C-alpha cells in the first residue's frame, strides 16, 4: 500500500467563499483518476486571505503551499507535481516562511491553519492540552496569578484586565458560577474569533475549562452569532470530540446560537439573550462578575481572550507580558479588511503603527488608489485619516486620539469614500440595532440621521454641525452601553478629520 500524501485545503469561511470546496473535490477526483493515494485535510486558514484557497501539501521536507488555487488549476498543478511539492507559478514555498507569516508573533493563532481543527490527536501533537494540564496541577490561585501577571486584557474591545475579572468571580460568594464566551463577533472588519473557532476550536474550549477551574465555574456557554454557520458547524463537531476526550470533566461547555442582533455582543445584552429574553442591555452595576447569567457570578470573555489562555500557561505569563507596549501587553490579532491588497489576519505585539499595518503589511488598497480613511475597532470605532497613521496600535494611544482599538479590526477605504455618508451610516446602524432600552441611543440615533441628512442637503450647516456635536455628547454620556455611547466616535471623527465632506457646494 502506497503512503498517503497529505493535502491541506482550508475550510475556513473565507476559503470556502472563494471556492475551496470545489478545489478539494477537484483534487480528490484528479488523484483518483491518476491512482494517487491522497488524504485531504480541511484545515483552518493561515490568515493570508488574498492567497485563499491556499492549498498545502505535506512533503518529506515540510509543507509547500500553492495559492490562490481554483478548481480549474488543479489538473495542471497535479501534472506539474503538486503531490511532491513541485514548482508551479502558484507555488509559495513553505507558507510559514512567507513574509506575511514570518513577521508575526503567534500566540492565539499558534495552530490556526496548521492543524486539522477537529482532530484531537493533531491538537495534542501541536501542544494542545498542556495549558489545562498545567492549570490542573497548579491549582486555581496560581492560574489566577498567571493570568493577572500576563497582563492579558479583554480582546472583545473594552480591554478590561482578565485577571481582575477572573479574581472577582473567584472571590464572589456562591456555589454556582458561569463562564460565558462572547462569540458574537458582529463588528465589520473583524473575523479573528471566526478564524479561531473554525481553525483551532479546541484552544477556545480548553481556555474556557481553564477559566472554569480558576474561578470555580462548572458550566460554560459559548454564545455565537447565527451569521457564522461554518464556525457553528466546526464548534458542534469539536464539542463532541472534546467531550469524548474528557475535556469537560471540570467544566461542561454548551453552544448557544444568537438570532441576528448586533447589540447582543454587549455582555449584559448577551446574558439576557442567553437567558432566553430580548437582548436588552442591563444597567451596570451590578457587574456580571457579581450578578451575571441567571443572577450568578459570571466571567464574560471574548473568544480571543479565552483562546489565548492555554498558550499563556504553557509559555509563561512573563513571556506574554514581555511583549507589547505601555499597558497593552502581549499580542493582538489585527484584521486587515475592506479595501486592502493583502487582507487577512496578522498577530503581532501591540505597538505597530497604523501606517505599518496598512501600507507595509497590508500593501495599501486593493483598488490601487490612495488610502483616504481607516476605521479601526468596528462600526463604533473612529475614522482616522493618513495624518494619524503614526498612531501605535495600543489601547491607550488610540484612546488619546479619540479612537478605539476595539477588537482589532482595520477597515481601509480609498479616496472614493464619502465620509458624510459613513457618518450617516453609523447613526443608521445604531438606530437599526439599538435595543431600545435607553432614550439617548434609541431616539438619538434617529435624530442623528436626520441632522446629518440636513447637513448633506446644505441646510444651516453650521447650526446643524453644532447640534450634531451636542447630540453626540448626549449619546456619549447618557447611553447605557457602548452602542449609543461609542457611535459618536465614527460620526465626530468623520466630521473632524474630513470636514470638506460635510460642506458641499
Amino acid at each position: 500500500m502506497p503512503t498517503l500524501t497529505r493535502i491541506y485545503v482550508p475550510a475556513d469561511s473565507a476559503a470556502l467563499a472563494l471556492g475551496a470546496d470545489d478545489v478539494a473535490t477537484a483534487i480528490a477526483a484528479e488523484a483518483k483518476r491518476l491512482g494517487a493515494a491522497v488524504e485531504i485535510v480541511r484545515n483552518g486558514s493561515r490568515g493570508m486571505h488574498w492567497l485563499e484557497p491556499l492549498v498545502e501539501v505535506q512533503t518529506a521536507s515540510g509543507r509547500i503551499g500553492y495559492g490562490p488555487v481554483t478548481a480549474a488549476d488543479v489538473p495542471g498543478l497535479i501534472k506539474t507535481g503538486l503531490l511532491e511539492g513541485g514548482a508551479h507559478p502558484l507555488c509559495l514555498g513553505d507558507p510559514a516562511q512567507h513574509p506575511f507569516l514570518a513577521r508575526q508573533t503567534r500566540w492565539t493563532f499558534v495552530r490556526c491553519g496548521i492543524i486539522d481543527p477537529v482532530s484531537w490527536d493533531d491538537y495534542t501533537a501541536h501542544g494542545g492540552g498542556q495549558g489545562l494540564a498545567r492549570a490542573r496541577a497548579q491549582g486555581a490561585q496560581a492560574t489566577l496569578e498567571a493570568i493577572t501577571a500576563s497582563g492579558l486584557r479583554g480582546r472583545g474591545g473594552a480591554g478590561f484586565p482578565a485577571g481582575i475579572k477572573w479574581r472577582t468571580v473567584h472571590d464572589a460568594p456562591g456555589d454556582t458560577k458561569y463562564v460565558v464566551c462572547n462569540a458574537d463577533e458582529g463588528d465589520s472588519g473583524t473575523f479573528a474569533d471566526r478564524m479561531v473557532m473554525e481553525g483551532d476550536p479546541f484552544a477556545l474550549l480548553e481556555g474556557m475549562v481553564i477559566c472554569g477551574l480558576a474561578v470555580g465555574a462548572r458550566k460554560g456557554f459559548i454564545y455565537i452569532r447565527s451569521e457564522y454557520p461554518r464556525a457553528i458547524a466546526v464548534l458542534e463537531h469539536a464539542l463532541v470530540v472534546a467531550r469524548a476526550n474528557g475535556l469537560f470533566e471540570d467544566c461542561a461547555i454548551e453552544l448557544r446560537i444568537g438570532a441576528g442582533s448586533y447589540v447582543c455582543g454587549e455582555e449584559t445584552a448577551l446574558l439576557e439573550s442567553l437567558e432566553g429574553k430580548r437582548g436588552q442591555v442591563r444597567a451596570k452595576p451590578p457587574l456580571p462578575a457579581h450578578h451575571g447569567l441567571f443572577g450568578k457570578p459570571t466571567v464574560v470573555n471574548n473568544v480571543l481572550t479565552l483562546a489565548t489562555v492555554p498558550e499563556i500557561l504553557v509559555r509563561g505569563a512573563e513571556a506574554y507580558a514581555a511583549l507589547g507596549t505601555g499597558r497593552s501587553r502581549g499580542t493582538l490579532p489585527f484584521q486587515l479588511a475592506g479595501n486592502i491588497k493583502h487582507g487577512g489576519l496578522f498577530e503581532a505585539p501591540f505597538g505597530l503603527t497604523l501606517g505599518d499595518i496598512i501600507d507595509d503589511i497590508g500593501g495599501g488598497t486593493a483598488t490601487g488608489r490612495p488610502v483616504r480613511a481607516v476605521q479601526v475597532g468596528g462600526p463604533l470605532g473612529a475614522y482616522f485619516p493618513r495624518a494619524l497613521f503614526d498612531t501605535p496600535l495600543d489601547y491607550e494611544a488610540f484612546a488619546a486620539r479619540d479612537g478605539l482599538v476595539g477588537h482589532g479590526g482595520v477597515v481601509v477605504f480609498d479616496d472614493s469614500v464619502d465620509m458624510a455618508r459613513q457618518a450617516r451610516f453609523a447613526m443608521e446602524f445604531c438606530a437599526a440595532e439599538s435595543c431600545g432600552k435607553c432614550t439617548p441611543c434609541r431616539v438619538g440615533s434617529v435624530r442623528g440621521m436626520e441632522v446629518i441628512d440636513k447637513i448633506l442637503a446644505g441646510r444651516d450647516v453650521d447650526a446643524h454641525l453644532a447640534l450634531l456635536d451636542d447630540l453626540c455628547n448626549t449619546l456619549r454620556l447618557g447611553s447605557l452601553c457602548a452602542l449609543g455611547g461609542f457611535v459618536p466616535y465614527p460620526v465626530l471623527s468623520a466630521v473632524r478629520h474630513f470636514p470638506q465632506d460635510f460642506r458641499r457646494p
Partner: protein
Amino acid sequence: MTWDTQRAAGIIETYKHLDGPALPVLRALQLEFGHVPDEAVAQVAEALNLSRAEVHGIVTFYHDFRRAPGGRTDLKICRAEACQAMGGDALADEARKRLGVDWHGTTQDGEVTLEPMFCLGLCSVAPAAQVGDRLVARADWPKIEEALRKCRR
C-alpha cells in the same frame, strides 16, 4: 412548511429542558417551518410558561425570526463598512434592481428573498454575500447568479 402543532410540540419538547430555552426553541421552529407564525408564539408561551407578550417581544426583537414564510432561497448581502469599502452598496443596488424587490422582499416566483445583513466575517475578501448555505466572497452579480443557480439544482 405549513404550521403543524404536533410537530412543533415535539421540537419544543427537545429543547425545553435547557436553561433559558426560548431562543433555541424559536430557532429550531424557524429552521423547521421557515418562519415563526402567531400560532407558534401562543404555543411556545404555553409550553415555556411565559406570557404571549414576552414571546412576541422576543420574536420581534431578533432579526433572524420571520413572521411569514420567505422564498425558497435567501440571498443575504452584507451592508457593513468593510463591504461598503469594496462596492457593497452598488452590489446591493444591483441585486434589488435585478430581483425587482426591496430588502426583505421575495421575488414574484417565490424563489428568492433578499435580506440585508451585517457582517459574515468575510471582510478581507469583500464584498460578501450568502446564497442559501453558500458563502460568496468578492461578490458580484454573476457570482451571485451562479450561486443561485446551484441552489436551485
